[in-house]
Structure formats: C-alpha cells, structure tokens
C-alpha cells in the first residue's frame, strides 16, 4: 500500500499526541474503535468558558491512516465550538488525507471520536449541574 504525503507527514510527525486530565470538568474524552478491529482512537478536547475547544490531544492504536486521521482531527477541532467540531465529516478527513477506499473506515472512526469526546464533555456538564441540583436543599 502506498500512502499520500499528508498521511506520511502526520504519521511521522503526529500533532498533539498525549493526554489531558480526564477528570477535569473542562475536558471531554472520546475513545472509539476496538482492539479486535485493529484500531482504537482516544481523542480529548479541552473547552474554555466561551465554549471554544482550546486544546486537543490524541492517542491511537491503528494503522498509519488511523494515526494520521486522528492527528489531523486534533488540528481541525482547535478553535472551534462544539457544534462546529461536530460538523467535521469523515469525507473531509478522507479527502484531505487522500485515503484510499480500504482506509475510509479510519476517517469514520476519527469523526466518531469527535462525537464521543463532545458527548463526554456535554454529559459531564449535565451530570455536574444535576449533581448541584440534587444537593440543593431549596430544590428538594
């Protein structure tokens, strides 16, 4: 299999590798895929008070195209609102990296990772507010 220059660039110099504090309320973590399928992506986003993603980190177990897709996504989500991040489609990822048909699933996984990270962040905030509500004697 031959790889596009962009896949090779992201693979050889992956952007934003690492982890953010998963328990931090401003961090959303998404982990998608399965070892049995040959790829697992973990994407984390840090959202500021204005609702903008100011940092993103990833770790990926998978082929070169999976690593490149997740690396690319960390660059793309930065500076976006959650809704703007959710609007990133796998087709755009596949096009940017010139993925061949057998590697399209890598771009789908990257899109899923964004959705999972955003969902985790939003979940946390609902849980947190629900928690306050439950502990608020005035609300009982």
């Amino acid at each position, binding site marked *: *299999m031959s*790889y596009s220059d962009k896949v090779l660039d992201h*693979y050889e110099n*992956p952007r934003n*590798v690492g*982890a953010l504090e998963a328990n931090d309320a401003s961090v959303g973590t998404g*982990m*998608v*895929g*399965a*070892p*049995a*399928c*040959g*790829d*697992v*992506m*973990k994407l984390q986003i840090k959202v500021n008070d204005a609702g903008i993603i100011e940092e993103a980190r990833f*770790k*990926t*177990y*998978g*082929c*070169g195209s*999976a*690593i490149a897709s997740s690396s690319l996504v960390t660059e793309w989500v930065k500076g976006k609102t959650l809704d703007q991040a959710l609007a990133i489609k796998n087709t755009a990822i596949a096009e940017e990296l010139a993925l061949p048909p*057998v590697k399209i*699933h890598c771009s*789908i*996984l990257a899109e*899923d990772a964004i959705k999972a990270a955003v969902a985790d962040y939003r979940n946390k905030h609902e849980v947190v507010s629900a928690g306050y509500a439950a502990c608020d004697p005035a609300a009982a």
Partner: protein
Amino acid sequence: MPTLPIYLDYSATTPIDPRVAEIMIPYLTEKFGNPASRSHAFGWDADQAVERAREEVAGLVNCDPKEIVWTSGATESDNLAIKGAAQFYKGKGKHLITVRTEHKAVLDPMRELERQGFEVTYLDPEPNGLLDLDKFTAAIRPDTILASVMHVNNEIGVIQDIETIGEICRGKGVLFHVDAAQSTGKAPIDLARLKVDLMSFSAHKTYGPKGIGALYVRRKPRIRLEAQMHGGGHERGMRSGTLATHQIVGMGAAFRIAAEEMATENERIRMLRDKLWAGVSTLDEVHLNGDMQQRVPHNLNASFNFVEGESLMMAIKDLAVSSGSACTSASLEPSYVLKALGRNDELAHSSIRFSIGRFTTEQDIDFAVQLLHKHVGKLRDLSPLWDMHRAGIDLNSVQWAAH
C-alpha cells in the same frame, strides 16, 4: 550500513540464485526446443534437460524421478492432488481432513470439493501451531479418503510431524497429501521413508523461478488422479501443457543447490534468526507465535502487543517484512492462521513475520533489531492500549464499541 530496504520476506518468495539464473538463460534462447518434439535434436536436448531437472528435484526429496509431475507451482500442485484424488477415489468415500492453518491453496480446493458434495473436517491446531495427533486420528472416518497437512507453515514456520501422520493415514487406508512449498531446503524430506502419497513443491520459495512447481505422486502403492488440465497428455496425462523448459531447468538447479547446501546454510540462518529473536525479545510484551523448537530456522513470527502491525511496518519500512494485521488485506480480518492458534485479535493485529534467507547478513539483523527497538517504543507512546496496559487495565474487561 546495509543496503536498504532489507529483504526479510523469504517466505513470500526468494530471488533466483544467480547460479540458477545462469543455467536457465540458454534455455530461453538457443536451447529453445519443445521437450515433446521427438523428431529432432532441439526436442531431444530440451527433453534431456527436463529429465535431468526431474532427477535433481527427486534427489532433494529422495523419490523416483518418475514420481515427479511438473506443474505451474504449489497452488496448482495442491489443486491437482486434492481435487484430482478426491474425484478419482470418490467411489470409496467423500470425506477429507485438513487443518485450519493450511495455505489457501489447500483450503480453497477443499471448499470447492464441499460445493461438489464432499465433506471436509477442518482441524484446529494446538496453541503452538502443531496438530494433536490423537485429535487427527479421531477425525478419521470409514469414508475418509484423503488428509492434507502441510509440512511447514508459511506464516509461523512450524513443522508438522508428517512422519507420524503418514503412519496413521497408511494404517487407516487414507491418502496423505503434504504441501511442502515452504519446506524444501529448510527441513529434510525423505519420501522413501515417509508414508506420504502426494507432495506439493514450488520453485520460487527455494531460490528458483516463479511459475514452476511439481507434484510428487507415489507409484508404490500407485496413486491415481483425475487430471485437472486436459490436453496433449503430457506428464503421463496428469498435467497437459508444453513443458516450460527454462523454468524446469531452474527448479532443478535450485533444488540441487538446496540439497548440497542446506545443512550449512540452515545453521547460518538459524544463528541469524536466534540473534534476531534475542534482540527483539528484550522489548516488553513481545510474544512469539508458533512453537520455537518444531520450527524452520528461517522464520520468526512475533506479536508486538499494543502496536498495530501495519503501522509498525510503515515505521520499519526499511525492512521488507509481512504482517498478520488485517490492514494488509482488504478485509478487516486479521490472520486466520494466528486466530486458529487461539491468539486474540489484538495479538494477531500486532504480528510481524520475519523470514530470513540465503542473502541475509548479520549486519541486516543488527540493523533490524535497532530499528524495531526505536519504533516499537515510539508507537507505544502513541498507543492508548499501551497506556491502559501500564495502568493495569485488563483490555478484555473493557466494553469496546466494535465498528
């Protein structure tokens, strides 16, 4: 610094030995006759060369040259042996036995026979890749006509006990076919002693040309086959088609050299393989696939846990190796051979096959070990599974969202 990339995929194919290529060339140009031409010297010369090659092939495996039938390779030999015997002996029964770790050139003809109304038992090997002989014996039925068990596995290099399996088959009146594509020149074969009825060979795994192979068909007791290729009645009617003299001469020379040099060559190769394993096994979480003792010296198949095989191959692109990872094929299924050993999907996805050969040097191995140390570490730094493993999380306890 060795020349890059370094070829460590000798189980996929080998270069033609330059000594073999030199012998082949005249048969492409001035000695171009058709070995079936009986009326002139062009034909006689070609026929003589073909018969000499037949003796050379027979010499490596200790059989009568008359028992060697030329084919286009091990795929064709497997097809001719399995379908040819099943179709000829179907009056005696319609059951066959094979193993899940066989090459597709055996499994696919078996599937075809199932479509034709035969029944096939696919045995699982033990976790070390070897067949449990009691399980094999238990699978034999009164209507079993043929068993097919490969000598050396192409992915993990393990050597099956074809001597004992042959005894079991002969005792039960079952024909025994062996795919020996991966064993010529690597493991000794003595057909005078082995109770093997049919054996497939390929030239290009043993420093001969691609597109030529042979099938051994035992004469005492005589084994009959239904031809799969009909035509001018070449090869005693078993395989029609004008013989490819230059290819045949190449296969003969390659097998003669193998017979002469295998003892010393294999010792050198074993030393290199052991050096490679000693070098990579110092990394954490590296698992050997297949038995280490009952194994050809050329093969090392290891899983680098928590690193996906294709990304590792991309990182070590200066080494030409192959992987059991799904990503190397269009399907998303990892190696069926490793799965049949009971390896989990992760380990199957993380496997690399290194196969060493005649032109591998010690420098090549040193370079490979260095490169692996550097890149396995780098990819693990990228791997969420490695983090989880280090945090003590059992990956089997995680609910993965399969896609």
